[in-house]
């Protein structure tokens, strides 16, 4: 990725000078086009398939955020508007910088480039910073708001930025009060207005698991057994910093299973057990389904993950499982019916994705994710049931 950056003051006493900012960007593009960005002789194509508004309170993250956006712009040439806020600053300050970002092209090919506007807001102007973002959005392409911190749904800046967006991206794994924050998220998602949809990077982490588990239902001879599942066991790495008994990602996975299979929560069957395991009861008709959530220590420095999921039907002695191999780069699936292994097991690569790749993936989706919404709703019911037992 080649980067051309101009650090120039684009703010005045009347706020950010949008006209000047656009002129600066145009001039940078003209330079890039004349010389080929980064000194190459190939042409440069200015492209914008979406607006990405990334909002964070952490100045220290700026370098890492720039690197991450390099990855994103490679997949989605866009206008990235990075808003860094410092609410507690005594002095009000509003600054803006512009840069263009081009991916390296093969020899002679045109480079597809995006652009970044960084806005730093401090003190009382943080509340009004959304009005600096609005005029910088490129019209007629989707607007994604990536709220890097924990969403505060009553926060004026959050509400104003949400109103500008078509889709809001959060990461429920970063919640510091996971149960409370997930309940608030569910409330916001269910109360969404004017076609604004939510994405959760944590949901993206479950995609491979969900795909493989759902794959069992594609096999006709498995289905009678899958209709009789009465036990689900999920072993998951509990994030060290997580204060909740069950990791949010695991709750979303359970919520997804329950929502897709029309299982109803049986609150009386939901109990904590020894060894930190949580037991959650569901019913479908007369059938009771017990879900055991077993925390295990985090095995290495990587992202805490689900380690294994098995679906068991006592009747017919059937088990279907997906497990993470120890090297953490492959998932293996298997089925056992009546005590016999029914398949040799599939091994699929499972590459841990970087945050930039995960974000890029979310930018592919604009429509409402009903599977996520249903899973989130179920997960919030589970939290309420777990809390009932904690009292």
């Amino acid at each position, binding site marked *: 990725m080649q980067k051309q950056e101009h650090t120039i003051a684009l703010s005045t006493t*009347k706020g950010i000078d949008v006209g000047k900012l656009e002129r600066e960007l145009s001039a940078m593009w003209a330079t890039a086009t004349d010389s080929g960005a980064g000194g190459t002789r190939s042409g440069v194509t200015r492209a914008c398939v979406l607006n990405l508004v990334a909002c964070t309170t952490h100045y220290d993250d700026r370098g890492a955020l720039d690197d991450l956006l390099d990855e994103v712009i490679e997949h989605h040439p866009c206008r990235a508007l990075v808003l860094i806020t410092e609410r507690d600053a005594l002095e009000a300050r509003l600054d803006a910088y512009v840069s263009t970002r081009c991916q390296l092209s093969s020899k002679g090919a045109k480079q597809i480039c995006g652009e970044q506007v960084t806005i730093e807001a401090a003190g009382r102007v943080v509340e*009004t*910073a959304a009005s600096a973002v609005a*005029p910088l959005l490129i*019209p007629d392409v989707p607007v994604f708001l990536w709220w890097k911190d924990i969403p505060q749904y009553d926060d004026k800046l959050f509400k104003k930025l949400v109103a500008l967006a078509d889709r809001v991206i959060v990461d429920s794994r970063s919640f510091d009060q996971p149960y409370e924050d997930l309940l608030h998220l569910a409330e916001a998602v269910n109360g969404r207005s004017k*076609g604004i949809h939510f994405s959760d990077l944590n949901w993206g982490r479950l995609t491979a698991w969900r795909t493989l588990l759902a794959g069992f239902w594609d096999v006709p001879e498995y289905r009678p057994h899958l209709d009789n599942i009465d036990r689900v066991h999920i072993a998951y790495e509990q994030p060290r910093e997580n204060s909740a008994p069950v990791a949010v990602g695991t709750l979303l996975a359970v919520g997804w299973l329950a929502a897709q299979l029309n299982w109803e929560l049986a609150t009386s069957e939901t109990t904590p057990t020894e060894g930190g395991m949580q037991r959650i009861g569901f019913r479908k008709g007369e059938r009771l389904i017990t879900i055991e959530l077993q925390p295990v220590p985090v095995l290495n420095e990587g992202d805490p993950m689900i380690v294994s999921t098995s679906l068991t039907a006592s009747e017919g002695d059937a088990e279907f499982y997906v497990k993470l191999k120890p090297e953490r780069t492959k998932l293996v699936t298997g089925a056992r019916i009546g005590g016999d292994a029914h398949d040799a097991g599939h091994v699929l690569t499972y590459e841990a994705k970087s945050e930039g790749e995960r974000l890029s993936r979310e930018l592919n989706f604009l429509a409402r994710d009903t599977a996520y919404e249903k899973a989130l709703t179920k997960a919030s019911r589970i939290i309420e049931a777990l809390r009932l037992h904690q009292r």
Partner: protein
Amino acid sequence: MVIFGASGDLAKRKLIPALYRLVQQRFLPAEFAIVGLSRTPMSHDEYHARMKSAVEEFSETKGVDAEVWDSFAAGMYYLPSDIGDAESYRKLGTMLDEIDRERGTQGNRLFYLSIAPEFYAEAIRQLGAAELTKSKTGGWVRVIVEKPFGIDLETARHLNKEILQVLDESQVYRIDHYLGKETVQNLLVFRFANGIFEPLWNRQYIDHVQITNAETVGVEGRGGYYETSGVVRDMIQNHVFQVLSLVAMEPPAHLGAEAVRDEKVKALSAARPFTSERVRAECVRGQYGGGSIAGQPVVAYREEKGVAPDSTTETFAMITMFIDNWRWSGVPFYVRSGKRLPKRVTEIAIQFRAAPLELFGETMMEGVTPNQLIIRIQPDEGITMRFAAKIPGQQTRIRSVNMDFRYGASFGMKLAEAYERLILDCILGDSTLYARNDMAERGWELVMPILDEWARSETETAFPNYEAGTWGPEASHQIIESQGRHWRKP
């Protein structure tokens, strides 16, 4: 060219920089001369110096070429004068005769009235009395009249009557700088030089039209003027109606000024009149409260300098128009214009009807809207066509994508300022891009019932009713949404 109000803001910011650019581009002959008139006493040289710094400050061209400027300034004169004083016009006549002799301007005269509107009639009367409205040597005499052209229908009619007692309509050029913008001019080309759009340009294929004219600025120290005006008088009855008429008009018989202007007036003549009921149900007025623009807090309109603390002047208006003719019957034209909106933009959005059958289910259509054609007048002038496309991948997922034309990218040249084109057209005698008397009056005829109804129900106004930095009052969204449509986010 004689500029009335030669030391004023318009002359400094627009007229002199436009004339300098025209000279630079060799559009004006070497004989061309300017006479500046205003009450401020100053010499020719002082006037040159002031105008030079104005060009340096306001011209889009970087820097002033000393040689070109010297040659331009050699034909620039200044005459201290009083609009109501006959002696001033006698002196002007003498000066113009001298300039004719010295520079060979052949008696061709263009008077530009860049003065307060209450002085238009007086200036023209005095020009007539001084026999300056007819050339002694067979040249032409034309008068450009700035906006606002009247403050209501009655004053506009009165002004037309007074002007036409002295001048022939062919000599009068009522300027509307929106018509000088490239994209507005391109509307005629886009519609009538292409074969593919015009067959779709009717009620059969178009669901509705949205015209947005948004400013981020407030009244910028002109509170006193704006209190007597408001957005309907200031923007809608002139600029917006000009744009709307170009969208709605029938193809002209030819590109002559009268043929084009005939069709524009015809389109506005077919506009459904506003009744009290229609104003209440289909129009919204607003006034901004405090809020923020470009990241900084801004005050409410009522707190602006020169504005009454209980002012009921509208800074935002949304009106729903119908053009009741064969082409447009039943197609709403939603128009909104306002100050202190989130971004500066003027655009026309043509929304086509949805495909007759929803072959692809809702889950495949990721936020897909029916086809739209967006004509961006300012800034970043261009045209965008939006249509649905399949997102690459194994599944069928559909999203709206854009096909863009941008003036900056396609032609790689800086667009001319509106005043450059309009002044040049007037010099060349082409009035196509100027408003005719009937157009000016028709604009007022249409908006008067709205203004009257709002004046009658003044006590019902709960202002401010929108926060600065938002897209106007909630009611403007409710009206369009009650009809199953949404305002775009331009």
